[in-house]
């Protein structure tokens, strides 16, 4: 592992500096901007975590909210029973377990079947949780009164995002990450290269689900009241997919490039056109689909491509380039 090499230390160090700077945001802006920042960071975590699995494997998962909701619901159930860090651990465990179960049972589905399956899963989990609450606990809709401020939530999310990016960065240079790329290219070949495809996919699915679950758990105290409809809102899954696809799910920072403009756009549209939000959102969406087919990363690469290719061939002759 190349931990001490400059091509590792440099980006990680830079990232650490940026995150350290971002941690001071609450002292600079008012709580509206903080709530906006929370929105950006939470979507950044979700979209990056989504892309971590879905980018290389090209599986479009609509199960984001399953894990997000499990996190949120864990807080609703245990929030007042256990200290918050412990609640997060429980949420993580719950998310991991469900992800393992789902992963092993579904990852052999391909293409649109997986898409629909994951969507169906959202509904199923919501129905099962509802049914359990109605028939077993006879308590639908839970109250979360926790002393967690908006800034606390922001810092937690920021830390989670930092950990996620670091994980993704290390993963990109690891055998596991490489295996995932091979699987994305050709699963049959991957198997015959000795890769335990199921294990790799499940591992990544679980890892990605873990971050989603934690995001849900961290966000939950913000809403005071949580019921299955609030926790498992399928719109969230769609938003995440769209942000990630807009940004470019095959690069570590790609999703972020989709999250920032879209979150701001949603915000501006909501604020300026409350009665025509849907129509404008739909139009903007179409414009994105038609004008930015490769996502923001695609656009970037398109305009950078000629330069890069020259550089690449230059380098190839001497060093042989890197796999990143």
């Amino acid at each position, binding site marked *: *592992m*190349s931990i001490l090499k400059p091509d590792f230390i440099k980006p990680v160090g830079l990232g650490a500096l940026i995150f350290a700077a971002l941690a001071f945001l609450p002292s600079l802006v008012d709580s509206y901007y903080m709530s906006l920042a929370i929105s950006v960071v939470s979507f950044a975590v979700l979209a990056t975590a989504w892309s971590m699995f879905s980018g290389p494997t090209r599986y479009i998962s609509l199960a984001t909210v399953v894990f997000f909701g499990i996190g949120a619901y864990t807080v609703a159930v245990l929030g007042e029973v256990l200290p918050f860090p412990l609640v997060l651990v429980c949420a993580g465990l719950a998310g991991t377990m469900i992800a393992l179960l789902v992963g092993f049972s579904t990852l052999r589905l391909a293409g649109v079947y997986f898409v629909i399956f994951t969507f169906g899963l959202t509904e199923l989990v919501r129905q099962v949780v509802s049914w359990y609450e109605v028939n077993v606990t006879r308590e639908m809709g839970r109250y979360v009164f926790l002393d967690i401020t908006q800034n606390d939530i922001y810092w937690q999310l920021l830390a989670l995002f930092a950990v996620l990016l670091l994980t993704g960065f290390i993963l990109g240079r690891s*055998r596991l990450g*490489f*295996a995932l*790329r*091979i699987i994305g*290219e*050709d699963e*049959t*070949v*991957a*198997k*015959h*290269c*000795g*890769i*335990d*495809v*199921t294990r790799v996919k499940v591992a990544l699915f679980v890892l990605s689900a873990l971050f989603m679950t934690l995001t849900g758990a961290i966000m939950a105290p913000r809403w005071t009241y949580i019921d299955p409809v609030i926790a498992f809102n399928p719109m969230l899954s769609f938003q995440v997919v769209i942000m990630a696809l807009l940004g470019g799910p095959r690069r570590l920072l790609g999703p972020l490039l989709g999250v920032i403009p879209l979150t701001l756009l949603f915000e501006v549209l909501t604020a300026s056109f409350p009665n025509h939000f849907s129509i404008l959102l739909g139009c903007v969406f179409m414009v994105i689909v038609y004008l930015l087919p490769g996502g923001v990363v695609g656009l970037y690469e398109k305009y950078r491509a000629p330069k890069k290719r020259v550089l*690449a*061939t230059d380098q*190839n002759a001497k060093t*042989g*380039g890197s*796999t990143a």
Partner: protein
Amino acid sequence: MNTEILLSISGLHKAFGGLIAVNQMQFDVHQGEILGLLGPNGSGKTTVMNLISGALQANDGKVVISGKDITNLPAHKISHSGIARTFQLVRVLPDLDCVENIEAGLAYRTKPLWGDAAHGAALELLDRIGLAKQAHTPAGDLTYIDQKRLELGRALALQPKLLLLDEWLAGLNPSELQDGIALVRKLKIEGLTIIMVEHVMDAIRSLCDRCVVMNAGAKIADGTPDEVLSDPEVVRAYLGDSHA
């Protein structure tokens, strides 16, 4: 010829719905030999290859390599037991460059290589299969023959005991074919055991120590190329009644 048996297949059976693709197949492959697996189209050759490599699961029968039963193990475990393969329709990893394609073979084998070691080994292997200059070309941009080379390189990277070549020589023009035959011969000299499914008779005659001929999912002949190709049953199966 070394008489030690490397791979042994017995009672292998595979059906797709009502269609029996492989019927009670059995044959052995000896250490260091090239075995040709022949037969008319649809006779089940590729299915046998898929059953050996774990791409398909057998309904019945046994596949044993070096004394180890690998029947119906998942493909990656079979790969770890020392079997590598190429595909009938060439399969490279199109968006990855050649070095990465080879590294894919290096990184997950029983004794994996990773990082600088893998990079070095990949370049070395590319040199061996004649692709050193294309090291950083995405595999999808290679010509057909180079993709075939690369696919072979990836299989070799796995350091297999047994190599399965599924019509690896198909679709090459005559001069490419000669290069291809030479390359396979070199592998044999290096001590690799090979099963090849092939239609090109030239290649079969010049490369194979022994041939197994299949028809309608079952074995109909087993012997040297000359023996089997003169076997009347084989001729009938292969060339039709009028030639028999």
